[in-house]
């Protein structure tokens, strides 16, 4: 009885070793997925050589953001522009013209111009 029990444990151990070897092998495939999950995979950009961003004013407020030099690969993507003067911020969203080029984005609300303003532009897609 003790022999059978010992043999059973031995068999299970061998089976587990073989099984883990296979799981280990399978995990090699899974590792590729893990790399993507770790955020190390590059996210494609439709524009790599830069854009020109200019504030368009109404009085002393930024009401519109003009963006030029958009690569044609960004055409039909969604462009979001957020103006932040350190106190208030506002965002506008518009569709990039097919073929890229230039466009304007109207902000949801006006932002007062200060000595230093930041404009964040994000193009999603196409």
């Amino acid at each position: 009885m003790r022999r059978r029990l010992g043999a059973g444990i031995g068999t299970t151990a061998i089976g587990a070793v073989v099984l883990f070897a296979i799981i280990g092998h399978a995990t090699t495939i899974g590792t590729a997925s893990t790399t993507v999950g770790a955020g190390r995979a590059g996210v494609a950009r439709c524009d790599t050589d830069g854009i020109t961003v200019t504030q368009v004013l109404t009085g002393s407020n930024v009401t519109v953001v003009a963006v030029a030099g958009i690569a044609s690969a960004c055409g039909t993507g969604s462009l979001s522009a957020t103006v932040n003067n350190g106190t208030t911020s506002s965002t506008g969203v518009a569709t990039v013209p097919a073929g890229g080029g230039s466009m304007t984005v109207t902000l949801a609300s006006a932002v007062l111009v200060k000595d230093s303003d930041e404009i964040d532009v994000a193009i999603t897609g196409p």
Partner: protein
Amino acid sequence: MSRSRVLDRRHLLAAGRALAALLLFYPFAHASVGYASSLTVASTDLTVYATCTLSGTTGASASVQDSYVDENAPTTTNGSAATMNSQSRNNRNRRSYVSFDLTTCAPSVPSSAIVTGATLRLWVTAVPLATCRTEDVFAVTSAWTQSAITWNNQPFGTAINSPASGTRTDSITIGSGAGCTIGSAAQYVPWNVTTNVANFVSGGATNFGWMIRDDAEGANGLGFTVTFSASDAASVPQAPQLVVTYRR
């Protein structure tokens, strides 16, 4: 039955059981692999740029220093003037100096940022008539302040047409003559200063701002004058600007 045969049988039996266990658990192992493989990231193209715009909105702007120097008044400071000039005229040449404190960008531009574009923008209030003048911009290589700079102590010295045009960062033609890039007043003049700002941000060069001068100083007669709005004009829509676009 010899001891070795018993061992062989045991080994055979153990191997058989191991194989059985393998076949039993393999679907689970396979299922686990299948589960891991389902971690597909559905990414969308994303292009992100940040822009810092520094503006001389008032004469006391923390981020901007600007002035002009006048060969005809070589010890006079003009840091509180509402306008500044670039003028080519024999013994009466004028140059404009402007600098922007990049550390006032909020959030700050990291030294590792990739500067994809930087534009120096000055609002022009008067252009030379019936001609095109080339206006050069040079990166300044030593310190100055708007309250102390004069023709005599300016960083580039008092010799006209110095530094040489070939060392300029950018140039643009201004005037009401045919073919000028900037043909009339009341608009911004945009000089491309990307290479300078990239060096300032990375630490490859120190930021002392820029000097603007006529490409051919010392013109005879009444000469040629371009007038820009200075930060002391305290006009937000006409404020001197530096626009820096970058990727973090």
